C-alpha cells in the first residue's frame, strides 16, 4: 500500500468550467479517507484524476512519494470500484475477477488461486459461473469489490459504491468495507455524497464544495467545529440552524442582537479578540438541532411556530418558523415526552454554549 498526495491539483474543462481548484490533501498509508460533497463538488473528479482516467490541468499527484501525472492508468496499480459497478456484462463472475490478473499477464494457475482466495473472502464461491445480470445488487457490489481486491493494488478508490443499494444493505456493506479496510491496512479513498455514510465510515473526512476543499478532519471535528457555513449546513442530519444576528456591546460583554431578543456570546468566544473586531457587523449564528429546546413562550425570548413534526420513534424532529425572522426555518431535536401540535407557538431556548458564529464571508469566527 502507498500514501497519496494531491498538490495544488486543478481540473478545468475546455468550456472554462472548473471541476477542481487548488486541491491539496495528504492521505496516509493505510488510511481510509472519505471525500464528501454534493454532486458537482469535484469529488469524483479527484478519483478520476488519481486513477488516470482524466488529466489534471495543473498540479501534481503523488503515489508513494512519486509523481504519477504522466503514468497511464494501467501502470498506476490502483483499483477502483464504480458507482454502477462496471462489471463486464458478457463475462462470468470468475472472468470478471480474473480480468485484471489476465491483463497483468499472470500465469493461469496463479490467477485461479487468487480468484479462489478473493471469492472465499467475499463469499462469492457459489456465484463464480454466473453472469452479472444474474446477480442481485448486493452480489454485484461484492464482485466489484472482489475485482478491486484481487489485484492487491497500492490503493483502493471507491466512487459512491453503495448508492445503488437499499438502505439496509448499505449499512451492512458499509461496515464490511470498513472492516476489510482495517484488516488489509489498505489506503482507501471513498467518495460519497451521503454525509451520514461519510461520518460513520471515515477516519478523516474531506468536505468539498464547488471544486474546492472546505475542511478536512475527523467526523467529530467537522461536526463540532465546522470551518465555514457550507460545512456547518452539510454535515449533520438535519444540518445546522443558521440565522443572522448583529454583534453589539452589552452592559458588560458582547451580545448577539437578534430581532426582539439578545443572546449572550458564548464564553469561549468572548475572551477572544476576533469577535471584538466584528462589533456592529451582521454575523451568522449557527446552532445544531439538539441545541434548541422547546418550552412555553417567555417574555423577550425567541418564539417560533411549529410547521411540522417528524417522529423518528425515539426522538422527534420539529420544524419551526422563527417569529423574529420571517421565512427563517429552524429544526429542533426533542424527546418524545411533551405533546406538540402543528401550528403551536413555542418558546425557544438556545443553548448558547452550543453556538457557532460565522463572519459575513461564511468563515467560522473562533
Amino acid at each position: 500500500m502507498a500514501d497519496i498526495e494531491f498538490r495544488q491539483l486543478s481540473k478545468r474543462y475546455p468550456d472554462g468550467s472548473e471541476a477542481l481548484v487548488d486541491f491539496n490533501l495528504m492521505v496516509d498509508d493505510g488510511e481510509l479517507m472519505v471525500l464528501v460533497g454534493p454532486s458537482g463538488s469535484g469529488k469524483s473528479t479527484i478519483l478520476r484524476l488519481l486513477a488516470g482516467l482524466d488529466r489534471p490541468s495543473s498540479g501534481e499527484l503523488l503515489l508513494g512519494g512519486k509523481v504519477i501525472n504522466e503514468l497511464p492508468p494501467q501502470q498506476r496499480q490502483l483499483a477502483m470500484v464504480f458507482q454502477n459497478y462496471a462489471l463486464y456484462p458478457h463475462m462470468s463472475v470468475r472472468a470478471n475477477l480474473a480480468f485484471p490478473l489476465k491483463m497483468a499477464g499472470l500465469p493461469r494457475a496463479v490467477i485461479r488461486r487468487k480468484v479462489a482466495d478473493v471469492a472465499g473472502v467475499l463469499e462469492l464461491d457459489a456465484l463464480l459461473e454466473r453472469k452479472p445480470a444474474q446477480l442481485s445488487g448486493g452480489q454485484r457490489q461484492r464482485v466489484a469489490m472482489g475485482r478491486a481486491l484481487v489485484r492487491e493494488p497500492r490503493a483502493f478508490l471507491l466512487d459512491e459504491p453503495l448508492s445503488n443499494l437499499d438502505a439496509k444493505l448499505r449499512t451492512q456493506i458499509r461496515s464490511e468495507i470498513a472492516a476489510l479496510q482495517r484488516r488489509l491496512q489498505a489506503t482507501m479513498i471513498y467518495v460519497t455524497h451521503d454525509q451520514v455514510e461519510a461520518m460513520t465510515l471515515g477516519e478523516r473526512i474531506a468536505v468539498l464544495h464547488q471544486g474546492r476543499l472546505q475542511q478536512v478532519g475527523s467526523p467529530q471535528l467537522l461536526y463540532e467545529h465546522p470551518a465555514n457555513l457550507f460545512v456547518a449546513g452539510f454535515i449533520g442530519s438535519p444540518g445546522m440552524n443558521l440565522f443572522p444576528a448583529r454583534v453589539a456591546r452589552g452592559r458588560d460583554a458582547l451580545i448577539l442582537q437578534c430581532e426582539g431578543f439578545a443572546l449572550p456570546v458564548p464564553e469561549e468566544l468572548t475572551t477572544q479578540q476576533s469577535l471584538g473586531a466584528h462589533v456592529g457587523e451582521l454575523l451568522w449564528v449557527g446552532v445544531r438541532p439538539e441545541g434548541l429546546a422547546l418550552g412555553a413562550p417567555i417574555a423577550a425570548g425567541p418564539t417560533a411556530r411549529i410547521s411540522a413534526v417528524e417522529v423518528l420513534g425515539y426522538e422527534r424532529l420539529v420544524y419551526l418558523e422563527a417569529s423574529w425572522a420571517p421565512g427563517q426555518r429552524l429544526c429542533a431535536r426533542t424527546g418524545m415526552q411533551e405533546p406538540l401540535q402543528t401550528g403551536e407557538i413555542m418558546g425557544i431556548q438556545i443553548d448558547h454554549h452550543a453556538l457557532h458564529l460565522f463572519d459575513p464571508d461564511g468563515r467560522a469566527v473562533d
Partner: protein
Amino acid sequence: MNLRRACAYLILLAAALLFFAPVAFMLIGSLKADARVLVEAGGLQALLPSSASLQNYRDVFARVAFGRYLGNSLFITSCIVILGLLVNALAGYALARLEWRGRRFLFAAVLAILIIPLEAIAVPLFYEVTLLGWRDSYWVQIVPFIANAFAVYLFYSFFLELPRALEDAARIDGAGALRIFFYIIVPNSRAAFATVAILTFLTQWGAFLWPLLVTSSERVRPLPLAIANFYSLPPLQWGDIFAFGSMMVAPILAVFLLFQRWFVRGIAATGLKG
C-alpha cells in the same frame, strides 16, 4: 381497440403479401416446366405449384458455370464483410471514444461521404484502379468497399451508447486501447456487428455496376453479372432464369434468418430506419 388491432394486422398482412409475392412467384416458377411459367403468370396460378421438378436447376448448371459465379460472389462478399467489420468497427471506436487531433474533422468527413453514391465516384475510382493495374481481379471488387462510411457511422453511434465506465474499469484493470476494444467492446456490441454484417452482405451480394465496369472475364465475375448475362443467353427460358434467381436469393435469406434476432436488435439500438 380490438378493431384497431385487427386493422393493423390486416395492413401488415397485405404488405407482407405484397413484398413476398414476387419472391414466391420466382421460387414456385423455378419448379415449373419452362413453357408454363409465363402462361400461368397472369393470375393466382402463378403462386400455385402446378408441377414440381428440379429440371430448371439442372439446366442452369448445364448451361453456365453457376458454381464458379457463386464461389466468386461468396468469396468477394465474405472478404468485404469480414475485413469491413474489423476496419469500420475500429474506425467507429476511434471516432467515438479516443481523443486525437483531427477527430472532429474526420468524423465530419465520414458523414459527408455518407451521402455520396458509388455512381458519382465510379469514374475516378475506375481510373484509380486502372492505374493500380487491379482491373479484372478479386481485389478490385473487394478493397474499395471494405471501408464504408455508413458502417463506420453505425458503429460510432452504437459505441457512443456503451457505458463509458466499462472502458474506464478496463483501463484501470490494466487494458490498453486495443485490448479494451477486443475484450470489452466487441463482445458487448454483437448487435452492431450483426447489423453491419447483414447490411454489407445484402448490398455487396447485389453489386452490379462496379463489377460490370472493372471485370471482363468470367473467372472473377459475381452472380449479378452472371444472371444479367444468363438472361440474354438464348434460348430465353423463364424457368431457368427463375431457378438461377432462386439460387442467388437463397444465401441472402439464409444470412438474414440466421442473424435476424441480432439484426432487429441492432436496428432498434442504433435508432436506424431501414
